[in-house]
């Protein structure tokens, strides 16, 4: 203890106290305050940057998920559209087929009707011609064989009987 006290110099103590006090004030003012402020700002800046990067990442992920969803929807829509188009096509073909057959049968009917009426007309025409022809024949026969009248008549009747219609 005595040795300690002997080592202690009051002059140096006073000088150190004053100088150290000045040093603390100067260091705080010119060094530690700006340094600590800058370090704090920088650390906060880094933290903010990391946070915003994280949120940007999340946003990106959301965006990607949205894109995926949109893509899925678009695909589904395309498929339904394709299906509808296919159905429509099939229906149109069916419809066309049906209409065509109806039309065809109608045409056939008309044709048959036309054929039938033509046939009727032809038959009546033929009947008229046959009658004319018969009359001409009869005339000739009459002209030639007016003498043999009975015989002639028998012949006409047999000839008419033979002339069958179709």
């Amino acid at each position, binding site marked *: 203890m005595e040795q*300690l006290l002997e*080592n*202690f*110099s*009051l*002059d*140096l*103590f006073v*000088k*150190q*106290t004053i*100088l*150290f*006090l*000045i*040093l*603390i004030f*100067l*260091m*705080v003012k*010119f*060094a*530690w*305050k*700006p*340094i*600590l*402020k*800058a*370090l704090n*700002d*920088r650390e906060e*800046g880094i933290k903010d940057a990391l946070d915003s990067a994280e949120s940007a990442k999340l946003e990106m992920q959301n965006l990607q998920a949205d894109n995926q969803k949109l893509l899925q929807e678009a695909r589904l829509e395309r498929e339904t559209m394709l299906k509808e188009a296919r159905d429509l096509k099939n229906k149109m073909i069916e419809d066309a087929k049906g209409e065509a057959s109806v039309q065809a049968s109608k045409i056939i009917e008309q044709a048959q009707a036309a054929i039938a009426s033509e046939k009727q007309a032809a038959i009546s025409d033929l009947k008229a011609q046959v009658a004319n022809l018969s009359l001409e024949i009869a005339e000739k026969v009459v002209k030639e064989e007016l003498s043999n009248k009975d015989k002639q008549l028998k012949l006409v009747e047999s000839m008419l009987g033979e002339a069958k219609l179709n």
Partner: protein
Amino acid sequence: MNYKGIKVVSKLTTIFSLIFLISFTAFANDGNKGEYNDPVNTQEEINEYIEHHVKDSHDFHLFDYYSNGEEHAVGFPLPVILWGENGLTAFMSSAFHHDDSGKVIVEKNGSRFVKNHGTIYELADGADTVVYDAEHHPTNASKPFDLSITKSVFGILLFGLLMLLWFGKLGRQYKKNAVPTGFGRVLEPLVIYVRDEIAKPNIGPKYRKFTGYLMTVFFFIWISNLAGLMPFGFNVTGQLAVTASMAIFTLVVYLFSSNGHFWSHQLWMPGVPYLIRPLLAIIELAGTLLIKPFALMVRLFANITAGHIVVMSLISIGILMKKDMSAFGSTTLSLVLSMFITLIEVLVAFLQAYIFTMLSALFIGMAVEEGEHH
């Protein structure tokens, strides 16, 4: 002052300080009549030399050499500033001609001064040497107030200036760029280390207010300790006055920042029987006001002083063991041992700065801690 000017001053000061700390160039002083062929080589002389070295002194003494039978001391003087009976007196310490035994009298400003074992006395009228009484108090001389730039004061000024320039520059660098360049890159992690490893964990959320003080203490002690390992032999943190001053700074800081919770625990400890509480209060008060600062003061002083003494003792092995081990053996032994101890001292230099700062932070943390509200 503009930025460029500060930069140049900073660079120059750093360079000069480094040259000053590392090189051995010194100014030769006028010789002192001494006996030739009487170097410091006995046990007693070495002890005295070591004891002299760990004390503060009024000049830088590097080495002595002999020429023409005269002893020449190499070093350089420092200003002596005294506040004595005739007011302020200033002269260079070379006026004492390296005398430390009270023989050389310096007459200045109507006063006569002698230097005896590192202390300057103002002689009373008619006296020409200091006479001591039984309790080692001078009877015919008074002690003027010594404002001299002694070796330690020079060190304090130099280290303070270096810190101011280095860290001030680092602080200015941040204005331009968020990342420092050059030497600032070395200093920045140290600042962050003190803040994150010493201030934050020990003080808690209120650390910001005390970080400036803790960092000043840490870097001042560390730089002083390291400078103590270089030539020129600064022994700033090995001066009891210096460590006492810093310990009292810590005491003042934690006393002034202490809160009600701290004092309620000091004076009336809750949770113990009422009879024991006054006893505990005495113990706690003694701890807070005396033991903590005393421990801070003695720990740093003793570690650094002991380091210096051990290194010098190991170096002196080379002289003392010469007879037993031959010159080569003793020199090798002392070199190897002192090299290892010096390496350990480099660690101790950091460790003691860390411990002083850490304990200061811990004491401040105890004083500002908020009680848990039950």
